[in-house]
């Protein structure tokens, strides 16, 4: 039974439809990604899930509760870290944790939460004196302090340096390991690929695909490309004769072999038999980036 169900969600602002018939279901314990370029309607979608926006069409259930008819129960069970949501400059980390703890029926031990998030030595620090990464981690701590079943995290790592971003990813995996279902909004391919069990790709308000990262890649194309420099001249026909190979090209002194299936094994076996060494060998596979381009007709970051 899905913990989040979104069916035919429609949301309009003015005359413009920003979310158009979006449906997906998130299973308990998943890290579910909502991926798309800026302005695709991702944030609006999760704002409807959280209950901040009233949908113009479709239905939403979170733990069986309709966010529009929530009497406070849903907000006990769902923690959210949204964009453009902030804390007072001069509030101390401890004060923020104590305050937010007081909002919930069964708050987590906030000192432990801060320890897990590596903020223990910042307990008495004012919010304005935290770094970007520390603010984000505090934000996650606040989203988790009510011991939620579902955590919604919107553009969690935007503005973080690469190290802080990787640390945050590890953290999300740790949180999931405790059984929390995570709805993650992102426009970072790498983030989606690394973290998510499944991804809903949204573009211009429409749902383009829902699948695992590997599934998305494979629906597009399972073509692989191998580049290498043969140590001795090689008759291309030897390679094209292989069932896995669909094409061979020369690029200077390099050979570029395209094909499917267990291409690498097939090619290296032939080379070994001919006693040819493949120097500078590189295997290029279709990435989620390629999949996104194929699904939407454009690259995500522009």
């Amino acid at each position, binding site marked *: 039974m899905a913990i989040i169900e979104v069916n035919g969600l429609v949301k309009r602002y003015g005359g413009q439809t920003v979310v158009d018939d979006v449906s997906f279901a998130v299973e308990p314990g998943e890290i579910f990604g909502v991926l798309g370029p800026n302005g695709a309607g991702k944030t609006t979608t999760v704002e409807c899930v959280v209950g901040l926006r009233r949908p113009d069409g479709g239905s939403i259930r979170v733990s069986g509760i309709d966010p529009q008819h929530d009497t406070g129960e849903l907000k006990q069970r769902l923690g959210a870290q949204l964009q453009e949501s902030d804390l007072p400059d001069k509030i101390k980390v401890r004060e923020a944790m104590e305050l937010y703890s007081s909002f919930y029926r069964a708050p987590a031990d906030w000192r432990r939460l801060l320890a897990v998030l590596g903020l223990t030595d910042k307990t008495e620090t004012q919010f304005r004196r935290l770094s970007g990464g520390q603010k984000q981690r505090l934000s996650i701590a606040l989203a988790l302090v*009510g011991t939620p079943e579902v955590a919604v995290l919107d553009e969690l790592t935007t503005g973080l340096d690469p190290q802080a971003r990787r640390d945050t990813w590890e953290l999300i995996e740790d949180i999931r390991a405790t059984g929390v279902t995570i709805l993650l909004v992102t426009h970072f391919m790498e983030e989606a690929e690394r973290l998510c069990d499944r991804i809903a790709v949204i573009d211009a308000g429409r749902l383009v695909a829902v699948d695992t990262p590997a599934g998305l890649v494979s629906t597009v194309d399972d073509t692989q490309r191998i580049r290498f420099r043969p140590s001795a001249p090689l008759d291309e026909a030897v390679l094209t004769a292989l069932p896995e190979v669909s094409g061979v090209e020369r690029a200077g002194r390099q050979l570029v072999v395209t094909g499917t299936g267990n291409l690498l094994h097939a090619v290296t076996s032939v080379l070994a038999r001919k006693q040819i060494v493949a120097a500078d060998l590189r295997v290029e596979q279709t990435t989620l980036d390629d999949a996104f381009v194929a699904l939407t007709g454009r690259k995500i970051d522009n």
Partner: protein
Amino acid sequence: MHTLYRLTATESKLFLREPPAVFFALAFPPLLLVILGLVPAFREPSADLAGLRNIDLYAPIVITMAIATLSLSSLPQLFATYREKGILRRMATTPVRPAMLLGGQLAMCVWMSVAALVAVLAVGRLAFDIALPGNVPAYALAYLLSLLSMLTLGLLVASLAPSGRGAGAIGTLLFFIMLFLAGLWLPRAGMPDWLLRISDFSPLGAGVQSLSDAAAGHWPQLLHVAVMLGWTLVAGGLAARYFRWE
């Protein structure tokens, strides 16, 4: 109860971390009373005022000024800034209810305002021999009603203002109008009839008169109690109606 306590405690701490706000809300009113009291003419009993001194007249006006500073300057700016910065947006994702949030901010303002009241009464008594309120329950009632009518007006400004800056501007404008009608520049005793009438129907005009009446040992006039209650209900109702998280 725990949530309201936490909200009030946190807001109070945050307020006390802003020195300019603390100065204007808590220190300036007693200071102004001292400055007025240093003018010798203000300490002379006047036949026009039935034997009272100008400084006696100004004590309730200074007290309402403290109320106006918190209600029309601190509260709307605080609230509009919270909305602008998304502090309310974050809270909207938690189980905390708007009423609780407003309650916490109001409680903080009440508590700060009472601190200013005590400071003004103490300075007035010790430095200028201004009599303490003759009718304490009546004084408490008059004070509470003035405070409530002004705080709800401040919340209304916070709810309607488009931004923190806008809230500051509207609040400042109302601040001067309210204090003018309270008699800060021209005490009610010197107002022409038509102005006095307008003053009667303003929250702080009614407030100053009620505080003066209670200080002299009387109960506030029914008109003034009704005016302050009316402002509280109307402004409070509209503020709740137009409350927005974002």
